């Protein structure tokens, strides 16, 4: 908008809130400005402990994140939060309601919370998330907490960006273990059974223990199980302690560097993906696109050749078709 001063990377690095907020908008949008900003910020990352929080709707993730941020503050640390909510595939719109349950932490000057809509992008969500984590990490937050509803490929990709992944369950929401076993169980570094004051919490913990014992080889890290009542702020310090223990494990075993490489790879992979998507969009705008497709359908042109032409970005889709 007019009258808005240019975004200064130094202000982002200094954790200046308005600059951090605008930087998040820039990197979420993507494009050359985002790439340039990320390039400046990347060398300043690696300080934050990036934690992914996932679990079914209603298990109390947002309340837990609110409480964790406050618990971190009580220990003199700061926290940046990214909360992901789905966009409508039909209108692209979204209602982002995670702030409702994060009222306590978000007024603290040592906490910054941003809502991120999934925007229906293939893989683009993990790019936006990776870029947002980069901004918050570079801004100097001690903890970066990213919250998603735990279902689907892109959510798992986001969790793979985190150093520590927390899977949250609550008793009484049907068969918890069934709900988490597809893909999510394997990525957990820490299980949290929230709403532990409700009936069935003990059973959930027992089931989890049993499931973890089923592993054929004893894994180098066995995910601990923490019980919490986030609404009453019970059990949160224990989560922070287990997360710190997990980070120490990652560092001792060299896995922390691997995760960082993975995060950078995601940024690169998504930049490639974006470039391919742009080429494809341009090809579909080409006046010869429909004729080129017809030729493929008729067998007078092969699909791979057309694909190569799209990737080259040369245009002239119908050239050579008669």
């Amino acid at each position: 908008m007019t009258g808005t001063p240019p975004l200064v990377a130094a202000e982002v690095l200094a954790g200046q809130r308005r600059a951090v907020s605008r930087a998040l908008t820039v990197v979420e949008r993507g494009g050359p400005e985002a790439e340039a900003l990320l390039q400046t910020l990347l060398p300043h990352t690696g300080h934050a402990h990036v934690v992914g929080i996932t679990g079914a709707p209603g298990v109390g993730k947002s309340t837990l994140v609110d409480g964790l941020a406050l618990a971190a503050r009580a220990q003199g640390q700061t926290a940046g939060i990214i909360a992901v909510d789905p966009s409508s595939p039909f209108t692209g719109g979204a209602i982002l309601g995670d702030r409702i349950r994060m009222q306590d932490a978000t007024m603290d000057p040592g906490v910054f919370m941003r809502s991120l809509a999934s925007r229906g992008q293939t893989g683009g969500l993990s790019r936006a998330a990776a870029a947002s984590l980069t901004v918050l990490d570079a801004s100097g937050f001690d903890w970066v907490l990213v919250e998603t509803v735990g279902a689907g490929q892109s959510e798992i990709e986001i969790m793979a960006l985190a150093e520590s992944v927390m899977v949250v369950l609550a008793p009484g929401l049907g068969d918890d273990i069934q709900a988490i076993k597809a893909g999510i169980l394997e990525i957990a570094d820490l299980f949290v059974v929230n709403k532990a004051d409700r009936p069935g919490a003990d059973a959930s913990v027992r089931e989890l223990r049993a499931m973890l014992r089923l592993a054929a080889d004893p894994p180098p890290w066995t995910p601990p199980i923490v019980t919490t009542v986030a609404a009453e702020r019970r059990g949160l310090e224990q989560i922070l302690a287990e997360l710190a223990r997990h980070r120490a494990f990652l560092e001792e075993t060299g896995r922390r560097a691997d995760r960082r490489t993975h995060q950078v790879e995601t940024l690169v992979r998504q930049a490639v993906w974006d470039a391919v998507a742009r080429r494809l969009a341009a090809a579909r705008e080409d006046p010869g696109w429909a004729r080129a497709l017809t030729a493929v359908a008729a067998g007078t042109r092969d699909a791979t050749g057309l694909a190569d032409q799209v990737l080259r970005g040369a245009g002239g889709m119908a050239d050579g078709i008669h």
Partner: protein
Amino acid sequence: MVLAAAERATPTSPCSPVGRAVWSGARYDDALGRARGMRDGGERVIRVLVAKPGLDGHDRGAKVIARALRDAGMEVVYTGLHQTPEQVAEAALQEDVQVVALSILSGAHPTLVPRIAGLLQQNGQGDVLLLLGGIVPEQDVASMLDAGVSRVFGPGTDTRDIVRYIQERVGDS
């Protein structure tokens, strides 16, 4: 066959919003097209904060507005009830919204609105489009506009008018 894989990738994520659309058949192409458009275009999505400052507990109106704006393709951050002016301004700052839509039915607008407008200004967000809805007596409208509100939408407003107004004011920025 990179592109064939790319084409397939979306529908095979059954839980992503786009993937889910496959189940509703005919609308799938449309949804996929929109998702592609958003991804490829890098367009600026309009972000709106819908806030309920003050002590009244009636957020039916705010939710109707939030829903209408969402259906118009905007990203709507809803704060929940009983927000202080500081909370509203802080949420606008952290979420980097272009629009703040306030819903006040308690009659406290003469106190709350200038305070919120002042905080937005102070945070470097003086250019945010500030809208007010709810119960605002006719004689208060002028003072609300003076305080920095762009427009007051009273009871009975067609949500399409609000959508159009926002799109006209911030759509091209």
